[in-house]
């Protein structure tokens, strides 16, 4: 009998993680806008209301600060809330609760309190949603000690990381990518977890290292395949969590390749890539053969017009151009 490898979408993987965890642990409940009767803005929790009831699938009014506040309060009392903030653009509305309260409560209480909660959100860059429904600013969270930040790029990672998030004892910001919801990949049935702070080398290579965040993992893999045809061996690393960040895997790779490109959907100035670049310079300066380059979004609000948005977005082609310019001198490319 031939065993078939089960492939499901990124969205289904998230749904499966939520479902399995809710079956297993009665302290897990969902809270957010339109997650119940409507089934979730992206239909991730479609049918959950019927299956688990309104106490465990809490539809809320449009009150982002109270969603996070309620999650904090219930987490302090021992529940495991999974809060949903429909678009990442709405995070600033509840940033007070997330940054000042959720993240700092443990520290400010001298370690007496813990806030085991997950905030699921997604960014919709590339869907013509305009400047207020497309943003991606994961680097903001790097200034918030006490928060953990997860950015899955594959269905496999999405399920395993979400399970880890739901069992963690801290507030976890789980940032999904809307463009990835329908991408398919191998996902085991049943239970597994992926530890935080452990980067995944998605592709091995010797000439250049790409550190790619979220959607840019796919773009980087496509770029690496294309460059292979040019005789270039590209390593693609997905940190998977940026807080904690597995800097050792990145530095180890850069020490071998001597070149680093960081691919990210956030704005270049002050982005996650800036932080990674600075740390790599601190730890691996002597091994660098070329300047660190970032393939990131420009420092402008996201334009609506679909063709302008496409130009705005980092992409496979931009990664290829960047790598070509880095290696061109040596390889005669570009």
């Amino acid at each position, binding site marked *: 009998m031939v065993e078939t490898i089960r492939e499901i979408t990124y969205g289904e993987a998230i749904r499966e993680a939520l479902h399995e965890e809710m079956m297993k642990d009665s302290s897990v409940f969902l809270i957010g806008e339109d997650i119940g009767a409507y089934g979730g803005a992206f239909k991730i929790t479609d049918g959950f209301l019927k299956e688990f009831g309104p106490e465990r699938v809490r539809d809320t009014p449009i009150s982002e600060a*109270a969603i996070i506040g*309620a999650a904090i309060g*219930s987490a302090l009392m021992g529940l495991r809330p999974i809060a949903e903030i429909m678009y990442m653009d709405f995070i600033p509305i509840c940033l007070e609760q997330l940054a000042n*309260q959720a993240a700092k409560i*443990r520290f400010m*209480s*001298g370690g007496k309190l813990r806030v085991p909660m997950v905030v699921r959100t997604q960014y919709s860059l590339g869907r013509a949603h305009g400047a207020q429904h497309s943003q991606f600013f994961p680097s903001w969270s790097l200034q918030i000690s006490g928060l*953990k930040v997860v950015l899955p790029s594959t269905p496999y990672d999405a399920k395993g990381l979400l399970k880890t998030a739901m069992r963690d004892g801290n507030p976890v910001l789980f940032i999904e990518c809307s463009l990835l919801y329908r991408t398919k990949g191998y996902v085991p049935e049943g239970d597994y977890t992926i530890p935080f702070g452990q980067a995944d080398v998605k592709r091995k290579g010797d000439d250049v290292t790409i550190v790619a965040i979220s959607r840019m993992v796919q773009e980087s893999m496509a770029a690496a395949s294309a460059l292979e045809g040019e005789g270039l061996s590209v390593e693609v690393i997905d940190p998977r969590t940026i807080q904690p960040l597995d800097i050792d895997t990145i530095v180890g790779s850069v020490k071998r390749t001597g070149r680093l490109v960081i691919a990210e959907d956030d704005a270049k100035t002050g982005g996650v890539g800036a932080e990674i670049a600075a740390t790599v310079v601190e730890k691996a300066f002597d091994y660098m053969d070329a300047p660190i380059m970032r393939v990131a979004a420009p420092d402008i609000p996201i334009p609506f017009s679909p063709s302008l948005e496409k130009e705005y977005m980092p992409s496979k082609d931009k990664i290829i151009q960047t790598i070509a310019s880095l290696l061109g001198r040596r390889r005669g490319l570009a």
Partner: protein
Amino acid sequence: MEEGEVKFPMSALKEIGRVPPSDYSKHGLAKDRLILMIKKMMEIRLFEEKVEELYLMKGLITGPAHLYFGQEAVAVGVISALNSDDVIISHHRGHGHALARGIPMKQVMAELFGKATGTCKGLGGSMHVAISPERGSLFASAIVGSGIPIAAGVGLAFKYNKSDRVVAVFFGDGAVNTSSFHEGTNMAAIWKLPVILVCENNRYAIGMKVEKAIALGSIVERALGYNIAGIAVDGNDPVAVYLATKEAVERARKGEGPTLIECRTYRQKGHGIYDKAPYRPKEEVEEWLRRDPIANFRNALISSGAATEADLIEIKNQIRLELEDAVNFAQDSPILPFDELQKYVYA
């Protein structure tokens, strides 16, 4: 009623004025209970006097310290109506909540000194001093209003676990204009959560007079907008506050949702220890000092025969001794080593 006409359930609002001492026993408040209340109030007052001295004269305490002078009846009245497994959420002016909830004076003082023996190991400070979950003092937010949505979450957890516990969240008159007040109160109201919303209307948000900050005639009327019960209470009478809270607690335990209690009181001093509050009319200050909650309650207890002058002097002497111990304890306590801080960031 005409179509489209909005009729507010005015009956949902009530007012509780100063309770005559002759009614104390009618309300089930026996002598030992009343003595405990005055003791806690005196403890808070003497504690704050000591903090002022240590801060202004001796320089032993620094950082913001928002004192509770004049509001003692609120913390003590509310907390007297709660069970030990109920929960309070405090705010930046929280010394009174901490002491009323029974957190040992030593721990509270040590926290103000930034010592490892404080309630938060010196990592929280004055504005978070009332964090002692083991004593039902869950959390204290220093961001105005932010405790309210968190209280909704605590109430949600009680409801989720089918428990009859309640949560009382303290906030000031300044907080009622934050989005947190609106979002948290609405959430507690729509889900009928066991939340007691205790507004300590001390008439000033730093220097902003309450009348200038709200369009309604009074804060308690906000309850109508959420279709919840509202009680305006003489916030300088611990018994009145106790009765209002008791009613709110009963309602909450029965699953009938939150109550907004507006405790009308007065911040006898400035916003912080350094603020001389020159923006307040002298007559207003004098008028409220005449209504001092502790002086009035002392007189009530003596006139009703619940305590004698000598009893109260004895209590005061006990507190002073305890306070000296607390200061010595705080001074002698160690400070957390800096290299240990990392371990308090994540669970």
